[in-house]
């Protein structure tokens, strides 16, 4: 099935990114919050950002899989990261945000507390993840970045979403 890439992230790009890109290898990250923590995912994996829709529940799914939505004709599963990682307050209202990700040729919706920014980070600005310190298993963390004194946990979103514990894919696909 073909995927239409949406322009949302293109508009959200910051000028900052360009300046740093010239300096070295800088990647852009979409940052979002889960409770008190701030996370980032590779912007190239983000297809669009949208509000929370009514979902259709799916039998035999874990609680954090809210169900499926219709995204321009494609059936897309929605994961609530707040439930999955026991972070933040689980509410659904007009401010609830969903990041639509493109992962392993699949589309997944991810509910988070809020989307904050698009930041560019040089590889030098990223340190390996310590053994503890976040609610998410270090296997799914690419590293820790620091931006203006803030700590940013960079997720290996592809690995997380394809993992067996997310139960998003048939075993055969992994």
């Amino acid at each position, binding site marked *: 099935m073909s995927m239409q890439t949406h322009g949302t992230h293109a508009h959200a790009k910051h000028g900052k990114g360009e300046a740093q890109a010239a300096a070295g290898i800088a990647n852009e990250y979409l940052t979002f919050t889960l409770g008190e923590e701030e996370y980032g995912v590779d912007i190239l994996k983000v297809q669009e950002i949208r509000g929370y829709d009514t979902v259709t529940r*799916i039998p035999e*799914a874990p609680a954090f899989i809210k169900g499926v939505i219709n995204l321009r004709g494609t059936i897309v599963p929605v994961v609530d990261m707040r439930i999955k990682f026991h972070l933040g307050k689980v509410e659904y209202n007009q401010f609830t945000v969903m990041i639509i990700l493109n992962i392993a040729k699949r589309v997944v919706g991810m509910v988070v507390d809020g989307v904050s920014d698009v930041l560019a980070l040089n590889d030098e600005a990223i340190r390996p993840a310590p053994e503890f310190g976040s609610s998410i298993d270090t296997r799914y963390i690419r590293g820790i970045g620091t931006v203006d004194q803030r700590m940013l946990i960079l997720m290996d979103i592809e690995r997380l979403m394809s993992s067996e514990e997310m139960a*998003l894919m048939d075993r055969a696909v992994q």
Partner: protein
Amino acid sequence: MAVDISRFRQVFLDESRENLQAMEQGLLKLEQGGGATAEDINTIFRAAHSIKGGAGTFGFAEIGEVTHLLETLLDQMRSAKREVTSGAVTVLLQSVDVVRGMLDAGEKERANDAQAVAALTEALQHILGSAPAAAAARPVEAPAKPATQGWRIRFAPHAHLLRSGNEPGRIFRELARMGSLKVEADLARLPALPQCEPESVYLSWTLSLEGAATREQVADVFAWVEGDCDLAIEPIAPAAAEPKPAEARTAAPVPAAAETAEAVVDKPAADKPAEKGGKAADKATAERAAESSSIRVSVEKVDSLINLVGELVITEAMLKQISGLLDGAELDPALAEKLLNGIAQLDRNTRDLQDAVMSVRMLPMDFAFSRFPRVVRDLAAKLGKKVRLRTEGEQTELDKGVIEKIVDPLNHLVRNSLDHGLETPEDRRKAGKDETGTITLRAAHQGGNVVIEVADDGRGLSRDKILATAEKRGLPVREDMTDEEVWQFIFMPGFSTADKVTDVSGRGVGMDVVKRNIVELGGQVDIESEVGEGTTITIRLPLTLAILDGMSVRVGDEIFIIPLNFVVESLQPAVKDVKTVTGRGRVVKVRDEYLTLVPMHELYGVGAEVPRPQEAIVVILEAEGRKLAVLVDELVGQQQVVIKSLDSNYRRVHGVSGATILGDGRVALIVDAGALTRTMSKAA
């Protein structure tokens, strides 16, 4: 600008494969003698010629050399300088195989099978080296005149026609659907402008409809205006066919080349030559017409088109829903009406568009049937049997996806019929039958389904043998089983009654796979068999995989779609008919039958308990011979839904066969009735 030619390589490969198939078909037809026309040889020649041309361009030198020899040989046959012997046909058929192998090798960038190529080249040169025999004594029948090419219709409405609400435009549209329509208006009755009454019809028309429509079909279109017009329907006289003498004369099979295998496939040459000739000519014309007016488009493009149209349908449904709310809104009524009219028109157009786009994916059954003449020929030769293959309804259209998936099961069934169904010529003679057995492949539309039959006139299934085997395998056997129940055993995994295992069939792998494949396509298989008379296997398939007729039911806040072909009935149960069985849950009594009753919300873990069960609805499902009663809150309606895959972005879910998008944009899950009945019968 340089053109990257390699991009077209795949096109060449695809087209060449099609050309080979055309060659194969033509050659098999030649071999059957009687029906072959000069045009058939010409078709084979053209196919070989275009492969040769492409091979040169794309650097397949060896293919070029082989097809050059083919072309030379075929050219001699075409111009009646050389006879079409069965030996030559066999070599030509071998060349088809070899070239096919060369194409495969080329695609995978492997080396050609040098031995096969050398052997073929030698065989071809051998034939070419021998002096061409004089043209045969018996010319192939000149193509008979086709009965009718269409209808000339003289339609002169009476002046008051419009006042019955009938419109010539509608009639023309309907006719245009049956074939190619030419409309000529006759203005003779048109009075001078001042005398014209706007409500009267002054024109009359002469219509030429070219196509296969019958007189009844044409007359049917005019049924409503009978008495309101003068009408004459006449067949269009076919143009006198004047075959060039040279072309009409192709050779009769004289078994000169004794070094080749004898043709075992029966040649019903003398059967009904005239009729066959006529048909063949018809078909050739139709095929040529089809060739020139089609383009090659990738399936992905078509599918993305279908997807988009699906979206359009949903958007349109949303618009319509919103327009329903306009009543309350403060809006200029004239403007509102315009908007509503626009939406109504959009609605019609969208649906037409949907139909049109879906039809693009449809292919004629011929796509699947066309490979069988070769399969049957080769297999019959191997088994020493005489077989005539008949195909009917090749033009029946079916979704490409379904056709592709049905080829393997059909192949298996045909092989089975040939191997087990048909007797040897001696046995048939002893049984007082024609030595040559018949296998018939038949396709037809029946309602929303396509029915495909594989029939043979062989020995039929042996009830005793099947029962004995079933017993040996420890399957539940009763003497009073109906034939139908007994035949079902052959669909069990590993079931075979063959006395000896052959490499054709008989290892017992297959019939279960055949059945499973067909059921997966949403179809069903039935067997009819009569000892000594033969066996008919009937496959019933949905027209398309993309759309299904569903019943939408509500459970709590969720809507589920149950495929209509699994729904037996729905009813509101009387309180006394619902009983609790200890430890087993509930059952419902429906006409003396107790069925397991499961609330849908329990099955799917969604929705909520119905507060008053007596107000709920019981839907009785039947799949794979098992029934199950499910309790839902409400029946919402019946609708066609576009099936969307759930596992393209998620995984498979037990009990769910897919999803669809409702008019309001929400997603509804489609119930997998087969899985449900299977699970429940295991649990019981």
